[in-house]
C-alpha cells in the first residue's frame, strides 16, 4: 500500500511539469509578440520603447532556456508574477478569489451528489422501463446543455419572474450564512447539472452490474427489504467507480465555473481568469490555470489512493 501511494504520488510530478510547460508555451508561442499586443491595445500606434519595456518586464528579451529556467525557479518559490494591467501580485489576486470559488465548488458537488445518486439507483433498479429512459435522457440532456444558458434560464424564471432568488452577485459568509447560501444556490445548481449528469450515468451503469451479482440475489432470497438490498448490498459495492467519476467530473465542474461565475457575477477564480483572457493578461492566465490544473491533478491522486485503500485488489 505504501509503495503504491509513493509510486502514484510520484507519477503526478511529470504531469504537473508538463502542465507547467504547456502554460509556459502559451505565453511564448503567441504569434507576433505578446508585448506588442499589450502595447497596442486600443489600435493606436505602437511605441517601440513601450514594447521594449514590456518585453523586459516579461523577461521576453532573454533567450528561451533562460526564460524557462526563471519561470521554473519562480514557480518553485511560489512566485506567479505580476498582473500586466493592475501590477498586483498574481498570488494575491488568486488568494482574494479562492473563498467564493471554493464555496461554489463544494455547493455544486453536494447538489450534484444528492440528486445524482438516487436518480442513478432508481434508473438501474427500474432498468429499461420508462423511468429509466426518462432519467437517461435527462442525464444526457444535462451534459448537452451549455451551463451559461441554463444559468440565464434560471435567472429568468427564478429571479426575474418568480423572485425566489437574487439574480446575481455574491454575499461573503461573514455577512450571514443564510444570505451566503441563498445566493449560491442558483449558480451551484447551474454548474452542478453537468456533474450530476455524469454521476447519474455512472451510478446507473455500475448499479446495473452489481444488481446482477449473486450476492444481490442471495440478499433478496434471504427476504431482505428491497431498500436494504439496493443500498447496503448493491450501492456499497458500486461506490468505487462512482467515486472515480466524481474526480473526472471535477474537470467539467471547473470548466463550468469559469462561465457560471461570470453569468452570476460571483467574484471567483473563474471570473478572474476570464477577464484576464479577454485582456490578454498572461501572468494571471498562467497562474490560475496552473492552480486549477494542480488542484484537479491532486484531487484525482487522492481518489486513486482511496480507491486502492477501499479495494485491496487494486494495485498497479
Amino acid at each position, binding site marked *: 500500500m505504501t509503495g503504491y501511494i509513493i509510486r502514484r504520488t510520484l507519477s503526478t510530478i*511529470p*504531469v*504537473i*511539469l*508538463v*502542465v507547467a*510547460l*504547456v*502554460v509556459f508555451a*502559451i*505565453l511564448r*508561442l*503567441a*504569434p507576433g509578440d*505578446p508585448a506588442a499586443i499589450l502595447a497596442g491595445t486600443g489600435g493606436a500606434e505602437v511605441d517601440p520603447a513601450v514594447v521594449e519595456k514590456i518585453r523586459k518586464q516579461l523577461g521576453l528579451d532573454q533567450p528561451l532556456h533562460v526564460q524557462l529556467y526563471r519561470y521554473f525557479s519562480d514557480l518553485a518559490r511560489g512566485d506567479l508574477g505580476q498582473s500586466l494591467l493592475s501590477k498586483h501580485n498574481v498570488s494575491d489576486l488568486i488568494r482574494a478569489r479562492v473563498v467564493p470559488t471554493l464555496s461554489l465548488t463544494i455547493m455544486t458537488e453536494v447538489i450534484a451528489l444528492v440528486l445524482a445518486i438516487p436518480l442513478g439507483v432508481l434508473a438501474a433498479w427500474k432498468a429499461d422501463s420508462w423511468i429509466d*429512459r426518462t432519467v437517461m*435522457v435527462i442525464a*444526457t*440532456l444535462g*451534459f*448537452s*446543455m*451549455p451551463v*451559461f*444558458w441554463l444559468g*440565464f*434560464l434560471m*435567472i*429568468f424564471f427564478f429571479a*426575474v419572474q418568480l423572485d425566489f432568488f437574487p*439574480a446575481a452577485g455574491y454575499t461573503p459568509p461573514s455577512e450571514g450564512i443564510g444570505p451566503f447560501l441563498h445566493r449560491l444556490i442558483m449558480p451551484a445548481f447551474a454548474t452542478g447539472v453537468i456533474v450530476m449528469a*455524469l454521476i447519474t*450515468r*455512472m451510478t*446507473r*451503469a455500475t448499479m*446495473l*452490474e452489481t444488481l446482477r451479482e449473486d450476492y444481490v440475489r442471495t440478499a433478496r432470497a434471504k427476504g431482505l427489504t428491497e431498500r436494504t438490498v439496493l443500498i447496503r448490498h448493491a450501492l456499497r459495492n458500486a461506490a468505487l467507480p462512482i467515486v472515480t*467519476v466524481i474526480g473526472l467530473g471535477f*474537470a*467539467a465542474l*471547473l*470548466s*463550468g465555473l*469559469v*462561465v457560471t461565475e*461570470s*453569468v452570476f457575477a460571483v467574484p471567483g477564480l473563474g471570473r478572474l*481568469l*476570464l477577464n484576464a*483572457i*479577454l485582456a*490578454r493578461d*498572461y501572468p494571471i*492566465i498562467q497562474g490560475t*490555470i496552473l492552480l*486549477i*490544473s494542480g488542484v*484537479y*491533478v491532486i484531487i484525482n491522486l487522492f481518489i486513486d489512493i482511496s480507491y486502492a485503500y477501499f479495494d485491496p485488489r487494486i494495485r498497479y
Partner: protein
Amino acid sequence: MASQSGRAALGSGRTRAETVGALIRSTLMAMRRNPTMAAGIAIVVVMALMAIFAPLLFTGDPSAVAPRERFTPPSSGNWFGTDNIGRDLWSRVLFGARVSMTVGAAVAVISVLSSIVFGLLAGYYRRLDAVIMRFMDGLMAIPSVLLAMALMALLGGSVQNVIIALCVVETPRAVRIVRASVLSIREEMFVDAAHALGVPPPRILRTHILPNTFAPLIVQASFIAASAVLVEAYLSFVGAGPPPEVPSWGNIMADGRHYISRFVWMIVFPGIFLTLTVLGINLAGDGLRDSLDPKLRSRM
C-alpha cells in the same frame, strides 16, 4: 447480432469497401432496434441540412441592422424576433448552425486522424510511448474549456483557430483510446505471425492494427463532435471565439445576455438549437457505442 458481424468484418482481412458496407449495415440495423439513437441521428441530419441550405432558408440578411426594429418579439415576419440592433434572429441562428456544424465535424475528423498517428506511434514504439503519453496526460490535466480559452487568447479569434484550439483539447483522450487498442492487439497471434514473416512494422500497423481501432474511434469521434460544438459555444459566449461579425450560437446568446429580463428570446432560441444539436450527437454516439463496441456497453 448485427453488432457482432460488424466487429467481425473489422477484424478480418476484408476489403475496405466491405468493411464500410458492414459498418453502415450494422448502424442501420442498430437504428431500428434503438429509437433513441435514431432520434439522435435524425436531429443531427436536420441540423446539418439547415446549415448547408442556410442561404436558401433565411428570411433576412443575418447582419442587416434595422435600428427601428430592435427587440421585435417572434412574429410571422421575424420567426424568432429580432435582436438588440434589429437583426433577424432566425437568420442568425440558421447561419450560426454553419459555424457549429463546421467546428464539430472538422474537430472530430482532425482529432481522430491525429490521434491515429500519435496513438499508433505510442502503442507500437515503446520509447515514444513515455514521451507522447506524458505530454497527453499533461494536456488532459487542464480542464478543457480553460485550455481552449487560453489557446484562443494566443491564437486570436477566427473559426479556423477555434478548430485548432479544440483539436489540441480533444486529441489526447482519443490518443489514449487508440494506444490502448494497439497495446492489446499487438499481443495477438496474427501480429506475431506477420512479424515472423518479415512484414515491415509500418505495414503491420496499417493493415493489421489500424482497422481494429476503428470501432472505438468512431464512437469517440461522435463524443468529440458533441464536445466541440458545446465548447465552441462557450468560447463564442465569452468573446474568445470567432469574430463578432460571424453569427454563432454562442455570440448570439452573448448579445442577448444583458436583455435577459425583458427579451428572453434572444437567448432561448440559439440555446435550444445548441442543446438539441449536442444532445442529438450524444444520443447517436451512445447508440453507436452500444452497437459497435459491445464490450463498452455496460459502461456509462
